[in-house]
Protein backbone atom coordinates (compact mmCIF):
# COMPACT_ATOMS: atom_id res chain seq x y z
CA UNK A 1 0.00 0.00 0.00
CA UNK A 2 2.71 2.45 1.00
CA UNK A 3 4.61 1.63 -2.18
CA UNK A 4 1.49 2.31 -4.25
CA UNK A 5 1.00 5.69 -2.59
CA UNK A 6 4.64 6.54 -3.17
CA UNK A 7 4.30 5.53 -6.80
CA UNK A 8 1.21 7.68 -7.40
CA UNK A 9 2.81 10.57 -5.53
CA UNK A 10 5.95 10.41 -7.63
CA UNK A 11 3.85 10.36 -10.79
CA UNK A 12 2.36 13.66 -9.71
CA UNK A 13 5.47 15.28 -8.35
CA UNK A 14 8.06 14.47 -10.97
CA UNK A 15 6.33 16.25 -13.87
CA UNK A 16 5.42 19.13 -11.56
CA UNK A 17 9.08 19.53 -10.70
CA UNK A 18 10.07 19.35 -14.33
CA UNK A 19 7.60 22.08 -15.25
CA UNK A 20 8.38 24.22 -12.23
CA UNK A 21 10.28 27.35 -13.01
CA UNK A 22 13.51 28.20 -11.32
CA UNK A 23 12.15 31.04 -9.22
CA UNK A 24 15.25 31.59 -7.12
CA UNK A 25 17.31 32.40 -10.16
CA UNK A 26 14.70 34.91 -11.34
CA UNK A 27 14.72 36.58 -7.92
CA UNK A 28 18.49 36.70 -7.95
CA UNK A 29 18.83 38.29 -11.38
CA UNK A 30 16.07 40.78 -10.58
CA UNK A 31 17.91 41.81 -7.43
CA UNK A 32 21.09 42.31 -9.45
CA UNK A 33 19.29 44.41 -12.06
CA UNK A 34 17.71 46.47 -9.31
CA UNK A 35 21.11 47.05 -7.66
CA UNK A 36 22.51 48.24 -10.99
CA UNK A 37 19.43 50.37 -11.69
CA UNK A 38 19.58 51.99 -8.27
CA UNK A 39 23.28 52.73 -8.65
CA UNK A 40 22.81 54.18 -12.14
CA UNK A 41 19.75 56.27 -11.25
CA UNK A 42 21.70 59.28 -9.84
CA UNK A 43 23.92 59.29 -12.93
CA UNK A 44 20.78 59.46 -15.09
CA UNK A 45 19.76 62.64 -13.29
CA UNK A 46 23.22 64.04 -13.98
CA UNK A 47 22.98 63.06 -17.64
CA UNK A 48 19.64 64.88 -17.92
CA UNK A 49 21.07 67.96 -16.26
CA UNK A 50 18.88 67.58 -13.17
CA UNK A 51 21.78 67.01 -10.79
CA UNK A 52 25.32 68.29 -10.48
CA UNK A 53 28.15 66.07 -11.67
CA UNK A 54 29.27 63.86 -8.81
CA UNK A 55 32.26 61.62 -9.44
CA UNK A 56 31.45 59.48 -6.38
CA UNK A 57 28.06 58.49 -7.82
CA UNK A 58 29.71 57.58 -11.13
CA UNK A 59 32.40 55.52 -9.41
CA UNK A 60 29.76 53.71 -7.36
CA UNK A 61 27.69 52.92 -10.47
CA UNK A 62 30.81 51.58 -12.20
CA UNK A 63 31.65 49.42 -9.20
CA UNK A 64 28.15 47.94 -8.96
CA UNK A 65 27.97 47.29 -12.73
CA UNK A 66 31.35 45.55 -12.72
CA UNK A 67 30.25 43.47 -9.77
CA UNK A 68 26.75 42.49 -10.94
CA UNK A 69 26.87 42.38 -14.75
CA UNK A 70 29.16 39.34 -15.00
CA UNK A 71 26.81 37.40 -12.70
CA UNK A 72 23.74 37.95 -14.89
CA UNK A 73 24.56 35.85 -17.94
CA UNK A 74 24.34 32.63 -15.93
CA UNK A 75 21.04 33.58 -14.30
CA UNK A 76 18.88 32.91 -17.36
CA UNK A 77 18.71 29.09 -17.48
CA UNK A 78 16.07 27.42 -19.67
CA UNK A 79 13.79 26.85 -16.69
CA UNK A 80 13.56 30.53 -15.77
CA UNK A 81 11.36 31.88 -18.55
CA UNK A 82 8.35 32.61 -16.40
CA UNK A 83 7.38 33.55 -12.87
CA UNK A 84 8.19 36.24 -10.34
CA UNK A 85 6.75 38.81 -12.79
CA UNK A 86 9.85 38.46 -14.90
CA UNK A 87 10.11 41.02 -17.69
CA UNK A 88 12.46 38.77 -19.65
CA UNK A 89 11.24 38.16 -23.20
CA UNK A 90 11.32 34.63 -24.67
CA UNK A 91 13.59 35.93 -27.44
CA UNK A 92 16.45 35.82 -24.88
CA UNK A 93 16.55 32.05 -25.15
CA UNK A 94 16.54 32.21 -28.94
CA UNK A 95 19.60 34.51 -28.96
CA UNK A 96 21.43 33.24 -25.92
CA UNK A 97 24.93 33.97 -27.24
CA UNK A 98 24.12 37.58 -28.16
CA UNK A 99 22.28 38.06 -24.88
CA UNK A 100 25.16 36.78 -22.73
CA UNK A 101 27.70 38.76 -24.73
CA UNK A 102 25.87 41.96 -23.76
CA UNK A 103 26.77 41.56 -20.09
CA UNK A 104 30.43 41.17 -21.04
CA UNK A 105 30.19 44.34 -23.14
CA UNK A 106 28.48 46.21 -20.31
CA UNK A 107 31.19 45.33 -17.80
CA UNK A 108 33.88 46.25 -20.34
CA UNK A 109 32.22 49.59 -21.07
CA UNK A 110 32.12 50.33 -17.34
CA UNK A 111 35.85 49.57 -17.10
CA UNK A 112 36.63 51.89 -20.02
CA UNK A 113 34.47 54.65 -18.53
CA UNK A 114 36.27 54.39 -15.21
CA UNK A 115 39.48 55.62 -16.83
CA UNK A 116 37.84 58.04 -19.26
CA UNK A 117 35.54 59.99 -16.94
CA UNK A 118 37.25 62.71 -14.96
CA UNK A 119 34.86 65.67 -15.10
CA UNK A 120 31.36 66.74 -16.18
CA UNK A 121 32.32 67.01 -19.87
CA UNK A 122 33.96 63.60 -20.13
CA UNK A 123 30.99 62.22 -18.18
CA UNK A 124 28.47 63.58 -20.72
CA UNK A 125 30.53 62.18 -23.58
CA UNK A 126 31.49 58.80 -22.14
CA UNK A 127 28.72 57.71 -19.79
CA UNK A 128 26.06 57.03 -22.45
CA UNK A 129 28.49 54.47 -23.89
CA UNK A 130 27.86 52.52 -20.68
CA UNK A 131 24.16 53.11 -20.14
CA UNK A 132 23.49 52.76 -23.86
CA UNK A 133 24.11 49.05 -23.26
CA UNK A 134 21.18 49.02 -20.82
CA UNK A 135 18.82 50.68 -23.28
CA UNK A 136 19.89 48.56 -26.25
CA UNK A 137 19.44 45.32 -24.37
CA UNK A 138 16.12 46.35 -22.81
CA UNK A 139 14.75 47.29 -26.21
CA UNK A 140 15.42 43.82 -27.52
CA UNK A 141 15.05 41.54 -24.52
CA UNK A 142 12.79 43.20 -21.94
CA UNK A 143 9.01 43.63 -22.01
CA UNK A 144 8.21 47.23 -22.95
CA UNK A 145 7.03 49.32 -20.02
CA UNK A 146 3.79 51.22 -20.59
Amino acid at each position, binding site marked *: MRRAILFVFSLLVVPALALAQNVDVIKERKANFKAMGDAVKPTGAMLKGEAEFDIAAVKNAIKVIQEKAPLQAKLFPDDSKEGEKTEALPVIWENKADFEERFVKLAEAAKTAEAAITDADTFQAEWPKVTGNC*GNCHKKYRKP*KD
Partner: protein
Amino acid sequence: MAVERTIVPAVAAWDLPTRVFHWTLAVLVLCAWASFEFSEDLDDPRLVWHRWNGLALLTLIVWRVLWGFAGPGNVRFASFVRGPAAALRYARDLSRGTPRKFLGHNPLGGWVVVGLIALVGAIATLGLFALEHNDNATGPLYKYAGETWAKYFTSWHRFLFEPVLLILIAIHITANVLYGAVKKEPLITAMLTGAKPDENYEDAVSLTPLANPIRRAIILLALAAALVFGGIWALGGKLP
Protein backbone atom coordinates in the same frame (compact mmCIF):
# COMPACT_ATOMS: atom_id res chain seq x y z
CA MET B 1 3.94 53.62 -88.92
CA ALA B 2 2.84 56.32 -86.60
CA VAL B 3 2.20 55.38 -83.02
CA GLU B 4 -1.31 56.18 -82.13
CA ARG B 5 -1.86 57.41 -78.67
CA THR B 6 -4.46 59.24 -76.80
CA ILE B 7 -3.31 62.42 -75.23
CA VAL B 8 -5.17 63.10 -72.06
CA PRO B 9 -5.12 66.79 -71.31
CA ALA B 10 -3.79 67.40 -67.82
CA VAL B 11 -4.66 69.94 -65.20
CA ALA B 12 -2.51 71.13 -62.30
CA ALA B 13 -3.59 69.52 -59.04
CA TRP B 14 -0.65 69.82 -56.62
CA ASP B 15 1.96 72.57 -56.54
CA LEU B 16 5.63 71.68 -56.26
CA PRO B 17 6.08 72.70 -52.58
CA THR B 18 3.15 70.50 -51.54
CA ARG B 19 4.59 67.53 -53.41
CA VAL B 20 8.05 68.05 -51.94
CA PHE B 21 6.41 68.34 -48.51
CA HIS B 22 4.51 65.08 -49.00
CA TRP B 23 7.48 62.93 -49.96
CA THR B 24 9.81 64.56 -47.44
CA LEU B 25 7.24 63.83 -44.76
CA ALA B 26 7.04 60.18 -45.84
CA VAL B 27 10.83 59.80 -45.79
CA LEU B 28 11.23 61.58 -42.44
CA VAL B 29 8.52 59.47 -40.77
CA LEU B 30 10.35 56.36 -41.97
CA CYS B 31 13.65 57.78 -40.69
CA ALA B 32 12.05 58.68 -37.35
CA TRP B 33 11.16 55.05 -36.84
CA ALA B 34 14.49 53.73 -38.12
CA SER B 35 16.60 56.14 -36.06
CA PHE B 36 14.96 54.81 -32.90
CA GLU B 37 14.65 51.16 -33.86
CA PHE B 38 18.24 50.90 -35.06
CA SER B 39 19.87 53.32 -32.60
CA GLU B 40 22.18 50.49 -31.51
CA ASP B 41 23.39 49.88 -35.07
CA LEU B 42 23.84 53.64 -35.48
CA ASP B 43 25.84 53.61 -32.24
CA ASP B 44 23.60 56.42 -31.04
CA PRO B 45 22.46 55.75 -27.45
CA ARG B 46 21.59 59.44 -26.98
CA LEU B 47 19.21 59.29 -29.96
CA VAL B 48 20.82 62.32 -31.59
CA TRP B 49 19.57 61.31 -35.05
CA HIS B 50 16.08 60.59 -33.76
CA ARG B 51 15.88 63.95 -31.99
CA TRP B 52 17.05 66.00 -35.00
CA ASN B 53 14.68 64.00 -37.14
CA GLY B 54 11.81 64.91 -34.80
CA LEU B 55 12.64 68.61 -34.94
CA ALA B 56 12.74 68.43 -38.73
CA LEU B 57 9.33 66.74 -38.73
CA LEU B 58 7.89 69.35 -36.40
CA THR B 59 9.20 72.13 -38.65
CA LEU B 60 7.69 70.39 -41.66
CA ILE B 61 4.30 70.05 -39.96
CA VAL B 62 4.30 73.71 -38.87
CA TRP B 63 5.11 74.58 -42.49
CA ARG B 64 2.15 72.50 -43.71
CA VAL B 65 -0.19 74.24 -41.28
CA LEU B 66 1.03 77.64 -42.54
CA TRP B 67 0.68 76.37 -46.12
CA GLY B 68 -2.87 75.36 -45.24
CA PHE B 69 -3.66 79.05 -44.79
CA ALA B 70 -1.29 80.71 -47.25
CA GLY B 71 -0.77 78.06 -49.93
CA PRO B 72 -2.55 77.71 -53.27
CA GLY B 73 -6.32 77.12 -53.23
CA ASN B 74 -6.67 73.36 -52.98
CA VAL B 75 -4.13 72.80 -50.21
CA ARG B 76 -5.84 75.33 -47.95
CA PHE B 77 -7.75 73.79 -45.07
CA ALA B 78 -10.71 76.02 -45.86
CA SER B 79 -11.00 74.38 -49.29
CA PHE B 80 -10.84 70.72 -48.31
CA VAL B 81 -11.93 70.40 -44.68
CA ARG B 82 -15.65 69.80 -44.89
CA GLY B 83 -18.16 68.83 -42.26
CA PRO B 84 -18.97 65.27 -41.20
CA ALA B 85 -22.20 65.36 -43.23
CA ALA B 86 -20.29 66.02 -46.45
CA ALA B 87 -17.78 63.30 -45.58
CA LEU B 88 -20.57 60.79 -44.91
CA ARG B 89 -22.37 61.76 -48.11
CA TYR B 90 -19.14 61.19 -50.04
CA ALA B 91 -18.62 57.84 -48.30
CA ARG B 92 -22.17 56.82 -49.26
CA ASP B 93 -21.63 57.81 -52.90
CA LEU B 94 -18.30 55.99 -52.87
CA SER B 95 -19.91 52.78 -51.63
CA ARG B 96 -22.50 53.07 -54.43
CA GLY B 97 -19.70 53.66 -56.92
CA THR B 98 -20.90 57.12 -57.90
CA PRO B 99 -18.68 59.58 -56.06
CA ARG B 100 -18.04 63.04 -57.47
CA LYS B 101 -14.44 63.70 -58.44
CA PHE B 102 -12.27 66.22 -56.64
CA LEU B 103 -9.13 67.87 -57.94
CA GLY B 104 -7.89 68.35 -54.37
CA HIS B 105 -8.75 66.15 -51.41
CA ASN B 106 -12.23 64.60 -51.37
CA PRO B 107 -14.37 65.26 -48.27
CA LEU B 108 -13.42 61.90 -46.72
CA GLY B 109 -9.76 61.89 -47.70
CA GLY B 110 -9.48 65.44 -46.39
CA TRP B 111 -10.06 64.12 -42.88
CA VAL B 112 -7.39 61.48 -43.31
CA VAL B 113 -4.98 64.23 -44.38
CA VAL B 114 -5.91 66.36 -41.36
CA GLY B 115 -5.51 63.27 -39.16
CA LEU B 116 -2.06 62.48 -40.54
CA ILE B 117 -0.86 66.07 -40.12
CA ALA B 118 -2.30 66.31 -36.60
CA LEU B 119 -0.87 62.93 -35.54
CA VAL B 120 2.65 63.56 -36.79
CA GLY B 121 2.47 67.00 -35.16
CA ALA B 122 1.27 65.52 -31.87
CA ILE B 123 3.92 62.77 -31.87
CA ALA B 124 6.69 65.28 -32.59
CA THR B 125 5.38 67.66 -29.91
CA LEU B 126 5.19 64.87 -27.31
CA GLY B 127 8.77 63.99 -28.26
CA LEU B 128 9.86 67.45 -27.07
CA PHE B 129 8.99 66.33 -23.54
CA ALA B 130 9.96 62.67 -23.84
CA LEU B 131 12.47 60.63 -21.88
CA GLU B 132 14.47 57.65 -23.10
CA HIS B 133 13.79 54.83 -20.63
CA ASN B 134 17.37 54.62 -19.42
CA ASP B 135 17.83 58.39 -19.03
CA ASN B 136 20.13 58.44 -22.06
CA ALA B 137 18.17 61.09 -23.93
CA THR B 138 15.46 63.67 -23.33
CA GLY B 139 13.44 65.96 -25.53
CA PRO B 140 14.55 69.63 -25.47
CA LEU B 141 11.63 70.66 -23.23
CA TYR B 142 11.82 67.64 -20.90
CA LYS B 143 12.43 69.80 -17.81
CA TYR B 144 8.96 71.29 -18.13
CA ALA B 145 7.38 67.85 -17.89
CA GLY B 146 9.48 66.28 -15.14
CA GLU B 147 10.10 62.56 -14.91
CA THR B 148 6.58 61.32 -14.07
CA TRP B 149 4.82 63.26 -16.81
CA ALA B 150 7.65 62.65 -19.24
CA LYS B 151 7.03 58.92 -18.87
CA TYR B 152 3.35 59.40 -19.75
CA PHE B 153 4.24 61.61 -22.69
CA THR B 154 6.77 59.06 -23.87
CA SER B 155 4.27 56.20 -23.83
CA TRP B 156 1.82 58.40 -25.76
CA HIS B 157 4.63 59.35 -28.13
CA ARG B 158 5.01 55.65 -28.77
CA PHE B 159 1.32 54.72 -28.82
CA LEU B 160 0.34 57.46 -31.27
CA PHE B 161 3.01 56.13 -33.63
CA GLU B 162 2.39 52.43 -33.12
CA PRO B 163 -0.39 51.57 -33.69
CA VAL B 164 -2.36 54.79 -34.34
CA LEU B 165 -0.27 56.52 -37.02
CA LEU B 166 0.68 53.22 -38.66
CA ILE B 167 -3.02 52.33 -39.04
CA LEU B 168 -3.83 55.72 -40.56
CA ILE B 169 -0.86 55.44 -42.94
CA ALA B 170 -2.07 51.98 -43.96
CA ILE B 171 -5.54 53.40 -44.68
CA HIS B 172 -4.02 56.31 -46.61
CA ILE B 173 -1.82 54.07 -48.80
CA THR B 174 -4.55 51.47 -49.37
CA ALA B 175 -7.09 54.11 -50.39
CA ASN B 176 -4.68 55.76 -52.83
CA VAL B 177 -3.70 52.43 -54.40
CA LEU B 178 -7.36 51.43 -54.72
CA TYR B 179 -8.36 54.73 -56.36
CA GLY B 180 -5.69 54.05 -58.97
CA ALA B 181 -6.39 50.34 -59.44
CA VAL B 182 -10.18 50.23 -59.16
CA LYS B 183 -11.42 53.70 -60.02
CA LYS B 184 -8.61 54.56 -62.45
CA GLU B 185 -7.95 57.85 -60.69
CA PRO B 186 -4.14 58.21 -60.70
CA LEU B 187 -3.79 59.88 -57.30
CA ILE B 188 -0.27 58.65 -56.59
CA THR B 189 0.95 59.84 -60.00
CA ALA B 190 -0.68 63.19 -59.28
CA MET B 191 1.35 63.54 -56.09
CA LEU B 192 4.52 62.86 -58.12
CA THR B 193 3.87 64.92 -61.27
CA GLY B 194 1.43 67.41 -59.84
CA ALA B 195 -1.05 66.81 -62.65
CA LYS B 196 -4.39 65.06 -62.92
CA PRO B 197 -6.35 64.23 -66.09
CA ASP B 198 -8.57 67.10 -67.15
CA GLU B 199 -12.03 66.06 -66.08
CA ASN B 200 -15.04 67.54 -64.48
CA TYR B 201 -13.94 68.23 -60.93
CA GLU B 202 -16.24 69.33 -58.20
CA ASP B 203 -13.72 71.72 -56.67
CA ALA B 204 -11.74 72.88 -59.72
CA VAL B 205 -13.01 76.41 -59.45
CA SER B 206 -11.43 76.85 -56.06
CA LEU B 207 -7.92 76.30 -57.40
CA THR B 208 -6.26 79.67 -57.48
CA PRO B 209 -2.56 79.39 -58.33
CA LEU B 210 -0.06 81.61 -56.57
CA ALA B 211 2.20 83.99 -58.46
CA ASN B 212 5.43 82.59 -57.00
CA PRO B 213 4.62 79.50 -54.91
CA ILE B 214 8.22 78.38 -54.46
CA ARG B 215 9.43 81.68 -53.03
CA ARG B 216 6.43 81.82 -50.73
CA ALA B 217 7.02 78.22 -49.61
CA ILE B 218 10.66 78.95 -48.77
CA ILE B 219 9.73 82.03 -46.75
CA LEU B 220 7.14 80.00 -44.84
CA LEU B 221 9.69 77.23 -44.24
CA ALA B 222 12.04 79.79 -42.71
CA LEU B 223 9.14 81.03 -40.60
CA ALA B 224 8.28 77.47 -39.49
CA ALA B 225 11.90 76.78 -38.52
CA ALA B 226 12.03 80.09 -36.65
CA LEU B 227 8.87 79.16 -34.73
CA VAL B 228 10.15 75.68 -33.77
CA PHE B 229 13.79 76.48 -32.99
CA GLY B 230 13.08 79.98 -31.71
CA GLY B 231 10.37 78.58 -29.46
CA ILE B 232 12.71 75.95 -28.02
CA TRP B 233 15.42 78.58 -27.57
CA ALA B 234 13.00 80.99 -25.87
CA LEU B 235 11.92 78.27 -23.47
CA GLY B 236 15.54 77.47 -22.65
CA GLY B 237 15.50 74.05 -24.30
CA LYS B 238 18.66 72.26 -25.35
CA LEU B 239 19.10 71.05 -28.92
CA PRO B 240 20.46 67.52 -29.52
